[in-house]
């Protein structure tokens, strides 16, 4: 689960890069970049939950 989270995070980064490639300077561009950040945050949450799961098993 941790590794799945770590794989989702670069997807968010590429979304952010896509935003500056696809959109001219506009509020939509900022919104798209924020969506990329949200995907990264989701990946981080999944990775952290995976870490907690491993810790719980090792206790």
């Amino acid at each position, binding site marked *: 689960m941790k590794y799945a989270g770590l794989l989702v*995070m670069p997807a968010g*980064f590429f979304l*952010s890069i896509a935003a500056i*490639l696809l959109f001219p*300077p506009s509020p939509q561009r*900022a919104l798209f970049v924020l969506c990329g*950040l949200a995907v*990264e945050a989701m990946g*981080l949450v999944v990775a952290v939950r995976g870490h907690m799961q491993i810790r719980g098993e090792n206790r």
Partner: protein
Amino acid sequence: MNPLTPMPFPETSFALTLGLLLLAPMAIAGVALVNTGLGRSRSAAQSLLGSLVVISTAVIAFALVGAAIAAGTSADHVFHLVSKAWNWAGAGPLFLKGFTFAGPRAQLAFLFELLSVALVALIPWGSGADRLRLPAGAAIAAIMGAVVFPLVAHWVWGNGWLAQLGINFSAGSGFFDGGGVAAIHALGGVAALAVVWIAGPRQGKFPREGLSTAMPGHNVVYALLGCLIALVGWLAWNMAGSLLWLNTPPSGLVVTAVNTVLSATAALVATFSVTRIRFGKPDASLCANGWLGGLVASSACAGVVSPMAALFIGLVAGIITPLLVELFELALSIDDPSGAISVHGAAGLWGLAAAGIFAQQDGQFVAQLIGVSTLLGLVLPMIYVIFWLANRVLAFRVDPDGERIGMDLHELGGNAYPEFVVHRDESYR
């Protein structure tokens, strides 16, 4: 924003920057003292000696290899995508070849980066306190100094793709980072998270049942004194960064200094209040973390925002830092003795985003968000994979017996405080 742009750099700016950079190591000393104070007494000497070891290793690795990647030259590694040039790595000479004949500004930039890499290496070392072996600390520092820091430094300061976001994509002035929040603190914070994930928590920190075990820092006086020492270094760091990377004239440095102080003090007041409300009394070690969080946030914005904005940014950093320290430990099972993930990582990312909000420049917010996204989405997974592989070759964590007797005895053969009684783990509960 572009360090390679030939800007006038008069003798006064050169002398001023050099003088400020000679004071900047006070920030490193302060952080080392905070790390040691927040660790356990049985590992105090190893912590401080380890600070010197990781600083030395990182600096040598950077000088030999990393400087070539960080440098911005006309022969940089560039790829083209959608008819835009993406400058992703420098192609300077290895082993500092030709450094003696470099221009004064390039030499100052190298000195700034040399001090930066020392601070970067220190941040994960603090998070891995009480269980990270000295050779592992040196390996982590070598990786950071030779590869990871130089890449990010090139993107931000060496005319890399982040610095060129303004030119290529009309995103404000491109990503800016005068005081080194992205290249130093946020990078160190995400590296600390990777180290903590890989090394795991200290023995007995998260028992099978009940809440996590409180393992308070052994000397909060060190931590608080470290904060005061760090302030001097941070002032110098932010001002030198403004001169070098933001092209601020010397007359504009007073605002940078005022913003740095306002951010740190606002953060301390916020953390003091938050911990007073949460626990009934202010928590000294969390206040130290809050102060540093304010300083970290100031590094992103001190050169580009108004004093009232800096005060607000520090205030928010001071609120989120103690709450995140608590969240990481109690809810997420992340054992970070120095609080570096919150202090350098979270407060740093907040500072970067806030600089985009308050800089009052069209498109700057997007440029700053791209920088935040790069650190979280690209650099964190990359560092985790590199450290995971390094851990396979050279185990990060000390064996259980070594952890039980303390890192001082295990690795150095003697305690930092030979006349003190060392408490057993059970005494914490």
